[in-house]
């Protein structure tokens, strides 16, 4: 297992280096410069400023310098936010996005599992249909629509929750729900399908015949086996939450990494765009790794197969 994880970490590193290289090349191909008053600066002054930031050096040199700094955890300084170290900017914002994403993922999958379970147990009843309708709505309507509706009704019309900003628990409720709807819908659908299949399989019939309690069948035999496919979709769900935060943070004025990413793209802030891209990439790869390890815990066969490699 340890060897397996170590090997995966190795792959992860290589993937990150490739992503960093590609993003770097793509950024260099973008038109424009990080100068903020581009129109008002003469050619000579622009050269002076680009020189100061080393942007006139040959691209391979800039690349090596960037990668060298990156290895030390230094993502450079922001151009838009003059002199602010990008690493510090991201570090101050990551916890906010992480809290929001985690809350949404946990609540979303928990509620989704409840819905899926109910639907599976009461297959083809009104409960099943309602659960289905809820998940179809959740999948097809984008989170920002929910966000906007909640903000208006819960925030303005009924004054139940704060409209925006970050700091208190109340302020996390609406953005969390907006983000949680998608994972909820996905996991409800997955769990329902899997549960119905598992509950109809031979070993459940056997367990029933042995006299295992209904709860025992559901949780010990049914749920555990139905969870494996759900774990598979957890990865893509976590990633879709990251992109979801781009919009949701903007709508609720939450000082997270998504909000920063959007504004750095608008201002051509090379260092922040690179830093955020790398962080997102790292996060994605890391999630995949965690899920592979989780597989091993849920289904020992996968661990054994991995270990032999």
């Amino acid at each position, binding site marked *: 297992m340890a060897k397996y994880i170590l090997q995966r970490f190795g792959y992860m590193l290589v993937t990150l280096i490739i992503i960093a290289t590609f993003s770097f090349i793509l950024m260099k191909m973008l038109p424009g410069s990080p100068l903020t008053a581009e129109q008002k600066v003469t050619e000579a002054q622009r050269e002076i400023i680009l020189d100061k930031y080393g942007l006139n050096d040959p691209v391979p040199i800039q690349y090596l310098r960037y990668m060298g700094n990156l290895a030390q955890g230094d993502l450079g300084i922001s151009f838009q936010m*003059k002199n*602010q170290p990008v690493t510090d900017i991201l570090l101050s914002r990551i916890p906010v996005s992480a809290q929001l994403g985690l809350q949404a993922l946990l609540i979303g999958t928990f509620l989704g599992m409840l819905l899926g379970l109910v639907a599976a147990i009461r297959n083809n009843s009104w409960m099943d249909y309602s659960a289905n309708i809820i998940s179809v709505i959740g999948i097809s309507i984008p989170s920002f629509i929910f966000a906007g509706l909640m903000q208006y009704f819960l925030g303005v019309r009924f*004054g139940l929750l704060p409209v925006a900003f970050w700091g208190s628990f109340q302020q996390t409720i609406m953005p969390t729900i907006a983000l949680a709807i998608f994972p909820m819908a996905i996991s409800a659908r997955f769990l329902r399908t899997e549960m119905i299949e598992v509950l109809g399989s031979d070993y459940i019939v056997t367990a029933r015949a042995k006299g295992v309690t209904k709860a025992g069948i559901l949780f010990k035999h049914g749920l555990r086996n139905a969870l494996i496919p759900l774990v598979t979709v957890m990865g893509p769900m976590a990633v879709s939450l990251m992109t979801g935060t781009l919009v949701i943070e903007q709508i609720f004025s939450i000082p997270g990494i998504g909000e920063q990413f*959007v504004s750095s793209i608008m201002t051509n802030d090379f260092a922040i765009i690179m830093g955020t891209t790398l962080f997102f990439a790292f996060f994605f790869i890391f999630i995949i790794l965690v899920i592979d390890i989780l597989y091993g815990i849920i289904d020992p066969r996968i661990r054994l197969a991995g270990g032999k490699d």
Partner: protein
Amino acid sequence: MRKSNWLLLVLALALSMFLAACSGGDDTSETDDTEGTEESSPEQVLNLIEASQIPTMDSSMATDAVAFQFLGESMEGLYRLDEDVVPQPAIAAGEPEISEDGLEWTITLRDDAVWSNGDPVTANDFVFAWRRAVNPETGSEYGPFMMNGVIKNAEAINNGDLDIEELGVEAVSDTELLITLEKAIPYFHSLLTFGTFLPLNEAFVTEQGEDYGLSSDNLLFNGPFTLNDWNPTGDNPDQWSLVKNEDYWDAETVQLETINVSVVKETSTAVNLYNTGEIDRAGLTAEFVEQYAGQEDYVTLPEPTLFYLKLNQANEALANQNIRKAIAMSIGKQDLVDVILANGSVVSNGAVPQDFTTHPETGEDFRAINGDLLTEDKETAQEYWETGLEELGVDSVELRYLGGDTDLSQDMDAYIMDQLQENLEGLTIDISAVPFEERISRDEASDYDIQNSGWGPDYIDPNTWLEMWTSTSPYMTMNYENEEFDALISEANNELITDPVARYENFLEAEKILMDDAAIAPIYQRSRAYLWRTSVKGVIFNPMGADFSYKNAYIE
């Protein structure tokens, strides 16, 4: 069966508990909200939003409206603009003494101005700050932009040809500042109100080094307010506040105790926050204007920002004056501002905006004197068009149109294209909607036929609108050249520099030439629409630099 019912009950309970947890949270938040809605209380607290973070609080590095806004509130330069856009003494004790040739400005500083660490604000603070702004090692964009060709030797220093000590600014004593200009600059007085010319405490800035201006802890203030809790790498990078500075020399004028600021990027969120009473002002985009126009707290503020089409004469058709005139006159500008912009913006028929500068003798507005020079007139446009086509010997013209990629500019460009193609027979327009940066680089490369472009002033003088259309200007990317126009502008900035009246007449004349040539096709002057709490009084609106000044503001 009974057992499964029991299980369902548990699940239902779990669900309802989760919902209950939510509504439990609601109760507490309700009390929070009522605290925020005490708009009518006499408390001198203003709650504002900005559309972006403060990029920098280093006055040498600042380039944008948000930075200048908070520099303007927390710092004080030699002069400060009043509500009539006239510079009033601030750190300066009175009006400047100007030598006869207009080159030497002697300014006496007040002796009771202090920094927030107790140091007095001295003449050396200005010398240090200005040298820093033009020092190439600082890498400032606005330093050289504001000072080159204005302060003596600024350009040579910025190019690295002279030592920074050679800059034309000198501390004669702690309270006497001697500024030497490159040439007499008639608008220098108003320049001194601009953020780039703010003082810096040398000892503090040197001690902070690279850390200067990174957060409120790394800053010193000498203005009406101090900036608190601002830290882009802190726990909440999107919220900060301005607190009344008790050490400010004019603290008794300042009535607001606190200004709370948060970053809000979505207009709909801003409107929602305004409607719950959490903020006192929300900027509106067109889709909200319809809903709120006419309400008592709906306000539009005209800005001195002009939008126009740049017509590149490298294109054979656009080199023809009749063709240019036809294009300029066939755009339905009134409908554009009424329907597409719908935010109080006004049609522009000249190259200088209204409510910006006045005639030095008569006090009449520039726009009022010159009137409408290039108006919408579709019939005359068609005549010009036909004459133009005849002169060119063609019956159809194809033009590339360069526009922005925002929703608003795409709507606007589509409308303009439609107007031009509909009114001018044989004209085909091909639009490219590109991001701002791309548009700028194509502009610099002169790679467009028609470009939808805009400009904001850099100082308060008609020159800021006209000099850029001279053939030698770095912004002249449309290959327009008119010797008469160039001569008038050059004369205004050289021979007539100490004769404000004759100079102003030159600008008036120059604008007429520019519009007669239809060098650019003016479209509109922008306004901004706001929802603005009526209890907020005394806010001064500035046409340049910081948008607003809250020094005299109060809550009624």
